[in-house]
């Protein structure tokens, strides 16, 4: 299966994105999921350049992005402005939102339906 959507996970902590990726891979082994966790030196935080590099590494042109806390969003939004890809940022609970998106993408569900399912999971803003 080749999916035209990729999923980006951004967290302040590398182990969080690693762990979440492990969880998502279990239900969505064919979905392209990439992570930007922690700063460039693996410390707590998020980094514009790291997110930028991960975005560029996607073959997919359309990305669903999920994040943990506010400053991750700021760096993510900056990277989105500098990227040519079509990126949608979801203000959902980090784990639940990315889990729903990944498992439904795996099942070839339409993006409109996925977004509908994500709506009740919005907890930010």
């Amino acid at each position, binding site marked *: 299966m080749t999916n035209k959507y990729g999923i980006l996970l951004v967290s302040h902590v590398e182990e969080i994105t690693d762990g979440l990726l492990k969880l998502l891979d279990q239900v969505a082994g064919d979905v392209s999921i990439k992570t930007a966790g922690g700063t460039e030196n693996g410390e707590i935080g998020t980094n514009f350049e790291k997110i930028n590099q991960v975005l560029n590494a996607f073959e997919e042109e359309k990305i669903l992005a999920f994040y943990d806390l506010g400053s991750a969003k700021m760096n993510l939004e*900056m990277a989105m402005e500098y990227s040519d890809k079509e990126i949608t940022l979801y203000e959902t609970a980090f784990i639940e939102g990315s889990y729903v998106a990944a498992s439904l993408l795996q099942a070839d569900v339409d993006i409109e339906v996925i977004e509908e399912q994500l709506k009740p999971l919005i907890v930010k803003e």
Partner: protein
Amino acid sequence: MSMIEKVSKWIELFGEKVTQNKETLNKLDTAIGDGDHGSNLTRGAAAIREKAEETTYDNLSKLFQDVGMTLVSKVGGASGPLYGSAFIEMAKKAKETEDIGEILEAGLNGIQKRGKAEVGEKTMVDEWAPVIDHIKSGSFTDEIIQESLQNTKEMKATKGRASYLGDRSIGHIDPGAQSSAYFFEALLDSGVLDDE
């Protein structure tokens, strides 16, 4: 001194102030945030110093742009994108004018666009907004900097990491307002405003 020399001095002094006060900023941030504001800005200041040493600037816009991009790339946390966005917007404005009030106002718009904060939410915006008003009306003094800073103490945070604390954020000076106070103290000391 030329305008560009004064602005370079301003940025250098800002770097010195955040570096000297790294622990103060970390401590303020420990109370209501994640405790790394001083460390993050100190890292940014070092990167800016390095960049400045290897570059000669002949226009303000390029100088602001480089500072902005350095902050965005080297400083984690919220302060990188926030200060970075400020400088990047200041760089754009500096192509049209040398008026510091107008340039700073563009910077504030950059911060607000990035952080979505309004006045009164206990953020750096609460330092920038009143200071810029006073710069524009020609009544800017050190007292304005300190007064605006103290005003953040009684505010309840509704943006940023401190907002998770709710009422418990009251009674603490906002670390972003404190580093912004250093930024404006450096502006006063640099002589950038003297010719105006």
